[in-house]
């Protein structure tokens, strides 16, 4: 890859699979459970986190030599809070319905453990370009899981994808519903996300045995 050196490329690719923030580090689970009932909400959440983590990591990295280590958590909070407010305002201005669906969870990006985790673990010790790649990579890893979970939950729970019916009309009984199929109400409720994430973790670890933790 000419654009990025191998080391840099790994910063983006690692969190997508073998060091995924959700399935391996088990961070950011709360929002993964709460907003993945619809694919659209998952996608918007993923984009928001990509923005916040990408920019946040760069800002923290630029300031890393001037932040007194005693108050670094507060500084990090201010940075992430600023970015989250920007996201929240943009959503309210251009996608009001969606911002209502996501409700408090946009604000709660501040408390998303992935973000503080990357600030602490990476941005405070690396340059801005590397921090940017790391931020984008981790947010992408988070987003991929969100979208997979959102896909299955919306497909089986509501029979739609991005709000578009793909399995037919459940009321007029067309498409798959004509055969007696029904939407699975279990997939709508948050515990289903926990189980879907669990299945992803299971599949991932049985494909790559090196990921299995010591009991």
């Amino acid at each position, binding site marked *: 890859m000419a654009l990025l050196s191998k080391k840099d490329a790994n910063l983006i690719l690692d969190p997508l699979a073998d060091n995924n923030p959700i399935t391996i580090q088990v961070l950011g689970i709360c929002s993964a459970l709460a907003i993945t009932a619809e694919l659209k909400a998952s996608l918007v959440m993923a984009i928001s986190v990509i923005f916040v983590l990408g920019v946040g990591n760069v800002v923290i990295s630029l300031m890393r030599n001037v932040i007194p280590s005693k108050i670094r958590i507060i500084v990090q909070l201010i940075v992430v809070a600023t970015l989250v407010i920007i996201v929240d305002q943009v959503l309210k201005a251009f996608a009001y319905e969606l911002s209502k669906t996501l409700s408090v969870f946009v604000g709660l990006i501040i408390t998303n453990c992935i973000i503080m985790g990357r600030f602490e673990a990476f941005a405070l010790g690396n340059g801005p370009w590397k921090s940017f790649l790391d931020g984008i990579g981790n947010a992408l890893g988070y987003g991929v899981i969100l979208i997979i979970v959102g896909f299955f939950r919306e497909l089986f729970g509501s029979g739609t994808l991005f709000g578009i019916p793909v399995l037919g009309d459940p009321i007029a009984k067309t498409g798959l519903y004509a055969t007696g199929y*029904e939407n*699975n109400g*279990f997939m709508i409720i948050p515990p289903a996300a926990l189980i879907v994430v*669990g299945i992803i973790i299971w599949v991932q670890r049985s494909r790559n045995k090196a990921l299995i933790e010591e009991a």
Partner: protein
Amino acid sequence: MKEKLHQIKEKYKGKKMAPAFNAIHTFLYSPNETTHSGSHVRSADDLKRTMNTVIMALVPCLLFGIFNAGYQHYSAINGFPAEFSLFEHFLTWENFWLGAITVLPIVIVSYGVGLAIEFIFAVIKGHEVEEGYLVTGMLVPLIVPVDTPLWMLAVAVAFGVVIGKEVFGGTGMNILNPALTIRAFLFFAYPTWMSGDKVWVHGAKDGITQAGSADAISGETVLGYLAQGNTEFTYSLSDMFYGFIPGSVGETSTLLILLGGLFLIFSKIASWRIMLSAVIGSLAMGLIFNGIVAAEWIPEYSKFYGLMNFEYWQHLLVGGLAFGIVFMATDPVTGSQTNRGKWIYGFLIGFMSVMIRVFNPGYPEGVFLAILLMNVFAPTIDHYVVRGNIKRRMKRLKTATIHPKVTDGVEALKTETV
């Protein structure tokens, strides 16, 4: 025949499909292998024998469920007989036939899907097939409504066996009772097929009408009826005890469940402590609710009034409480292991079942939720019972006057006690 099977087994040892073959083999015959090291006590009741005993206790409930499915269906169409006679109205070929064609497919799907998954996992993992599904497969048809679509059942069984059991390591390692996991999945995934007044009688969902009128047939469970705020119901006490009421396939007949429970207690398969304490727990909660009504703390128009006013001991006759207590709470894998723990575990199951019944507006049945909840807490209960026991013994040791020789000091005794 037996020798031949043993030879085949030797021949295919280590092959991929060996576990699948061995499962069928040991189901029919006891294996010819002996243990290779140490001394072992040979006992007559292995896992399969235990499972078969439970299934024997369940068969009467299944047969009753088959007749009851037919009886409820024809009674809903033609009206309930004024003078009920067991042989003329209940044990008829007509009832049996209708029940058989609705209930047996459920049994077949439950066993077919469940055992297929067990076999697949055994082959992948390369271990022997475990018999855990034998009882679950029989319990599942008994705790679902007669008209449950078969594909829904298949999905739920697949979910229950994989997520409820196999991910934890298979039979004996599961935290939750697989049959109840299946029931809970069905309830949360397809609530319209699991509650209401249209699912308990065969044909009601399809809109079959009553004889001589345009009204569609329906059948409400006693609990569902009470939950809507009604206080009077048409079923007599003996109907509820013998089980001539609508409900899930095999849970209606308290009499047969009682007989099955006694059979399990006398064959020492199930714990009488859990059963007894669960009954006490449900009676206690029922009495508290009756007391609230008697003290007039709750007005008659409250939506909880109907169920709170329900005679405390009659809770045991309706719904799945009796069935849950006898066949589900006593599951040796998911229940408490210590004797004191069993009392606490059982009591809380009964207590919470009745509480959820009264307070859950959507679905007046709490047994499966109460048992699943206590399944989760069973290890914690056991932990504290064991710790409490250790503490008590340590205390006894401190105050004890030690008579033995001076050479075995307190330390030695301490290790012995712990």
